[in-house]
């Protein structure tokens, strides 16, 4: 049972959190202007890196706040956890 550090509530067991997929994939401002292929890419394609990966999480059973995290997909270590209004930290 990993700990995830909610940017508000602090470290809590992962069971209190829900995963929200890749972070920093904003919904296109004008979907109508996208080709079918571009739209399909937005809908169905996400990165799957080996190593640091920016993700969305929500402290579902705590403060209900969404936040972002950079997690290493090999070690599962959380390198950075940051609020939605904070910029993505530099990662190696």
């Amino acid at each position, binding site marked *: 049972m990993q*700990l995830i550090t909610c940017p508000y509530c602090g470290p809590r067991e992962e069971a209190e959190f829900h995963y929200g997929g890749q972070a920093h994939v904003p919904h296109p401002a004008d*979907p109508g202007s996208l080709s*079918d292929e571009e*739209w399909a890419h937005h809908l169905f394609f996400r990165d799957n890196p080996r190593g640091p990966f920016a993700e*969305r999480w*929500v402290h579902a059973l705590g403060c209900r706040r969404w936040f972002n995290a950079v997690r290493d997909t090999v070690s*599962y270590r959380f390198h950075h956890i940051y609020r939605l209004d904070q910029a993505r930290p530099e990662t190696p």
Partner: protein
Amino acid sequence: MNALRLPAGGRIDRSTTYEFTFNGQRLTGHPGDTLASALLAHGIHRTGTSIKLGRPRGIAAAWAEDPNGLIQIEEPFPEPMLLATTVELTDGLTARGIPGQGRLADVPDSARYDARHSHADLLVIGAGPTGLCAALTAARAGARVVLVDEQSEAGGYLLGSTDRIDGGPALDWVAAATAELAGFADVLHLQRTTAFGHFDDGFVLALERRTDHLGTPTHVLGGETAPPHKSRQRVWRIRARHVLVAAGAHERPVVFSDNDRPGIMLAGGARTYLHRYGVLAGRDVVVFTTNDSAYAAAVDLADAGARVHAVVDARAATPAAWVQKCVRRGIPVRAGRLVTGTEGVERITAVAVAGERIPCDLLLVSGGWNPAVHLFSQAGGTLRYDGGLGAFVPGEERDGVSVAGGAAGVAELGGCLADGRRAAEGALGGLGFVPVDSPSPVAEAHVDGQPSLVLWRVADGDQRTQFVDLQRDATVADIACAIGAGMRTVEHVKRYTTIGTAHDQGKTSGVLASGIAAELLGRPVGELGTTTFRPPYTPVAFAALAGRDRGSLFDPERTTAVHAWHVARGAVWEDVGQWKRPRYYPLPGEDMEAAVLRECAAVRGGVGILDGSTLGKIDVQGPDAAEFLNRLYTNMIATLKVGSVRYGVMCGADGMVIDDGTVLRLAGDRFLVYTTTGGAAAVLEWMEEWLQTEWPDLRVYLTSVTEQWATFPVVGPRSRDVIGTVFPDVDVSNAAFPFMTWRDTVLGSNRSGHDASTPRSARGGRPAPDQDVPVRLARVSFSGELAYEVNVDSWYARAVWERLVAAGERHGITPYGTETMHVLRAEKAYPIVGQDTDGTVTPHDLGMSWAVSKKKPFFVGKRSFHRADNQRADRKQLVALLPVDRNLFLPEGSQVIEGPSVPEPPIPMLGHVTSSYRSAALERTFALALVKAGRTRIGETVHVPVAGALVPVEVAEPVVFDPEGARRDG
């Protein structure tokens, strides 16, 4: 009786005698014994036979590393796959040896199993000299310490030795250390507690065996018994800032021909049986060793009266001091010699040493020591091979984890004591504690000796009887076979040979397998490495892992405010998510079909009432609430007037339906959104995700009010009469209260109702005054009938429900459940998200294009409706299916095919049945189905396989009852 029990010594209580039964034989032992020590006291080594070859096997160690002594307990309660070496003897115990497999009880286990969370600055695993030193160091510095140890008492290796600390017996020091630890409020010291899993972020699971050793009340001879309220086993969920593994080391055997006979034992094990249990494991002893440690066993057993016929030391250079001790006792030392074979079937009778036959009844073996690195490795710690020790030791340092003492490869007592203190001080520094000055315990001088020889096996003889993993009957021949088959890594060899996969998880065989495979491959063992250590360290019963999450506590049952009424009314339940919902209310003699037909007829013919409180409800407030909902629903919400209700559909960005429900506009800046019962939490999270991550500029606040409001649809042509009676101040006429509007009203309340709560006077203040209870009525219908949804503060839900039922009595009001609700809605083709949809269904597929705005420039999912796949003419569409046989019921999930005969595979599938019911109104069966290009097939006949036959069904308009909607307004 106890022929091999010494008259004195050990940590057993000779004043009390326990009777037990093993393999049908009545035997005796003492408190403090394990089953193994009690058997050995009777001279019994053999416990059973091996799993594949049926070879007699016996006790080979003194604790969990034993690969052999597998037993089944029959009394007090059947439990398979235990080790005789780790079962504490109790009075009346009945057990038998098993050949690798036992049997589970065929009656439920009535024992309690529970869990506890615990937090520590420092968790110390192992209460041997290293762990005790570390725990003391940390406790004295003021840290919160958890100390766990798997044995019945602290001391670890010291329990089986004659070591001395601070000039006295080491166990006196152990007792003093334990007593000092007990004086710290923030030290949790648990014996009989095995740390079995080490996970991320300092999380360790440990199993505490709490009551078995106390015996059962019927069998106890005096003293404590197991209290029935106390859990038998407890899983400790320990979260530590720093974990110190001080788990000691396991002695490693050497592989030679016929090395599996009963009476062949690890040297340290025999020493433990002697010193801890006062038992001589044999009278005629041979010791075979590659290192100094086994000399202590030879000397101690000789001193206790055994005849030690030889110490066979594989090394040419023997340790002078030890040899001198042997000579003094008349023990011959054979330097540079190997054991090449053994004799005896049920028990070893002789050892072959370089052509010489030495009779014996006990062969002690020591091939060195493997640090118990399991818990370090489980948490991701890498290991490195130490050529001097011939063992894998912790490699790099890891944050928050350290290893000390025997587990780190430290061999002697003084080193362990110092290492425990050093490791604790290192950890404390990182945690912000300052170690206090205190004298270090001093161990007696170590006997200088010779370096160990790394010897995995004695090659002479038949590889097929050179056992590596005794529990799996896996031999050197099997490793050779694996390598012959092309296995080149130790992981592959493990899987090919099954070495290390048994009950003991390779505690003695794992490193041997690496060593022997390396030898056969001609590669360095350090390069080959070892297999991965995985939890659990020792087996854990599923019952313990489940803890209290079983039976009615396995999954929470959510209930509504009216639950007790449903219970009293004899409701039959449907589980909807975690909710308990009445499925139907059978009258005496009714089955489900009869009850549902009656309930359906009552609603369409008169009036019914449903507990719909499980619907999700979300309060949406803020200046931008209308804009927010406009973006999330496919239809127009912003134009909804205050006082009105709209049905809305929510889609994912892919355009597929994810939820539906009604939306009430309470004020210009406030809405009440209803979700499906099962979707409530996910929809709120979904809405929050859009709000927080995409549209943080919108001033909107979302609050769950699912349990705040109880919701009771009162449905049917007579519903207006019931509502008019209960809420006389509401004009319930169609003109004043039209369809898809809501009205607020109030009912008088009575604070002195049957709740007995009294405000706590200590906190002052005045109790709340009597006040009116707000009720919100909504003209919505999930059945096509005239209906009023009554929403009330859940504090008053039961009272309002009862009032509605009382008022409806003269109209024959009928409470109905989810099954009737489903029939009624299906007759009107109202889909159930998750039943008639599956994540691939658009509103258009459901025939709800009317619920998709063409005017709104944006809503979630809109863009996807223009994708080619969403435009396909052959998309599956929701239609009704009417079996030609009006009485034939189509099972939900049935496939729909063209028919009338079954073509050659692959059979083109047209779709499947999503909902199927018997309609009271139509006096026939009907179904909803998703069918390819379904709407163009209306009027056609297709076929459904039912019970081995293809039955014809007519594709029909989805709304099979009152398609004109004539009944909506009563």
